[in-house]
């Protein structure tokens, strides 16, 4: 059942180690999920709060597998021609004109002309087709919850068959199926038919220890004290009932910002100066600024 060439890992633990070497720290669940996704050739459906590392996971996996990361960002009204393939119409028109110009007085054979127009060289591969044609590849279908439900139905075929059918050319099948990672921020419910074909991974914010480790792996050379303070403060912020609780990405941004302004530790002044890196709403910033000393004391 497994026609993927032996990956870099033969157990979840080995895969976690490989991911760690790219700077992505995986816990048991995440390691098992990615390991199974590779072994079972199943897409991985990642859901969770924004900023818990869903997109970063796909990037880390691509690095581990030495594969090309192909990203499809979903949006309202996305359709097959933006996700799958499209014909390069301007070039087709040009080709047609060239044929006419060189044909001289003789009439053109319509069938032959048409066949020459729908040649793979006029085919523009969009992310999904590109992922099927590239080996090895990791296909990231980002924020699937933003697309319409018709688009989900269209993905079902691609995700289970690893093939697409182009009427003029025929079926294009992946020799080695890409590793597919889907992410969702849960802005709407994704259809059960799609979820059933995937492994379901719910990502939470990491615990304090892991978040400190993440800071160390993402920002080598960060002072021990600063990393612990930032992780602790972010943890307190997440419990402070904000409009937008900070994710891991904000933690890293904040620590980086603090380093850039030359802060060796987190105090009221440096925190106030860099608050924009971690809080993205004026209301949140106002509230936190008033209570900075109690927040940092905790």
């Amino acid at each position, binding site marked *: 059942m497994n026609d993927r060439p032996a990956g870099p890992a033969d157990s979840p633990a080995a895969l976690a180690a490989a991911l760690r070497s790219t700077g992505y720290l995986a816990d048991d*669940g995440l390691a098992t*999920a990615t390991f199974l996704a590779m072994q079972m050739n199943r897409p991985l459906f990642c*859901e969770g709060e924004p900023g818990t590392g869903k997109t970063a996971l796909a990037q880390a996996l691509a690095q581990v597998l030495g594969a090309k990361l192909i990203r499809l960002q979903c949006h309202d*009204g996305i359709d097959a021609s933006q996700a799958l393939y499209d014909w390069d119409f301007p070039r087709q028109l040009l080709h047609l004109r060239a044929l006419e110009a060189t044909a001289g007085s003789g009439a053109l054979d319509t069938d032959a002309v048409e066949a020459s127009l729908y040649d793979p060289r006029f085919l523009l591969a969009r992310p999904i087709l590109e992922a099927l044609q590239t080996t090895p590849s990791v296909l990231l279908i980002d924020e699937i919850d933003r697309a319409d439900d018709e688009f989900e139905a269209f993905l079902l075929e691609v995700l289970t068959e690893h093939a697409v059918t182009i009427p003029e050319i025929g079926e294009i099948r992946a020799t080695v199926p890409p590793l597919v990672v889907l992410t969702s*921020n*849960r*802005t709407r419910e994704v259809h059960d038919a799609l979820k059933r074909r995937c492994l379901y991974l*719910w990502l939470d914010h990491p615990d304090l220890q892991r978040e400190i480790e993440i800071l160390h792996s993402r920002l080598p050379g960060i002072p021990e004290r600063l990393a612990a303070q930032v992780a602790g403060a972010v943890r307190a912020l997440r419990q402070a009932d904000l409009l937008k609780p900070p994710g891991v990405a904000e933690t890293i941004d904040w620590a980086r910002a603090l380093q850039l302004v030359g802060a060796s530790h987190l105090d009221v002044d440096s925190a106030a100066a860099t608050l924009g890196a971690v809080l993205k709403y004026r209301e949140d910033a106002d509230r936190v600024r008033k209570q900075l000393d109690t927040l940092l004391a905790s």
Partner: protein
Amino acid sequence: MTSTEVPVGDPIEGLVGFTVVLRAAGLAVTTDRVAAFLAALDALDVTSRTQTYWAGRLTLCSDPDDLPRYDRAFDDWFTPPRGGGRTRVVDERKPPPPKLAALTPSTQGESDEDDAGESTQVFARASGNEVLRNRDLAELTPAEREHLRRLLALLRPELPTRRSRRLRPSRHGPTDPGRTLRAALRDQGELRRLHHRDHSRRPRRVVLLVDVSGSMEPYADALLRFAHVVVRRSPGTVEAFTLGTRLTRITRELRMRDADRALAAAGRAIPDWSGGTRLGEVMRAFVDRWGQRGAARRAVVVVFSDGWERGETDLLGVQMSRLHRLAHKLVWVNPHAGKDGYAPVQGGIVAALPYLDDLLAGHSLATLEELLEVVRNA
């Protein structure tokens, strides 16, 4: 404790037994999910408790709400029993009666009281649709209620649309090179006519928030039926929630075709039927968990509530202003707004008023139809 005690007999049987328990716990465990679970275990170490746990969690769960139930079932099933064998407990109790039954008097009850039943029926017929349309929903007799239900079911709400990113063949708009080229090919490469394409219209999201607290009780049944009609009209783009002491999403329940079954299911889903309200807190829960993430973005949001706020109204004001910034249109429907001498003085309404695009009555069928008109043109 790392190894797992698989129950006596075939290990597969024990694992499938676990999936049966999960199904009883309310997870949507289908046969293909069970197959995926077994396949996952095949690739992992079955004797490891952690790996068995994750194999199941990744293949059998599909929603964050499933996770606590899964954890509980996993602990129950895979923790070796202390003394005595494993017994399966089947819950044979009837499901609790739907709470909505209290609001929808059963028809048998009516036929028992012959005289009263008949006279109200006669009255309902005499009153006719036109009168009923303007009657206050809270003051209907059981027979009129029955009649209203049928009228509600006949509503064919038209929902608002928005411009889509998708291009469709059209008479206007930019040239469609694909269709133009294909048409040219049919004419031996001669361009005889330019084809055009333009953005199509797509349904705009609609969010219905129905207050089911005690003071709204006389209206709740009719409003939920109304919500059912709207959800059924466009199940993919309408979301429905109830507001009480908690926020409850009832979209899934209301998608059922049969109105009575849908309402019974919604009634079961609502834990805080006719309790109190803390509108501010519940609205915050909605904006945090759903609204900001996308459900309310550029949507038409309709709040059905009398605005009786027992908590702080400041919080409600802040939440309404957030919602106002997210939504395309924010409409408040207050059943009391249709009565003579009504002035928007309740704390909740006062706090919300600056952020509303419209304040409507919605106490009768006629005003609900008016609401549909407002929503359609939003």
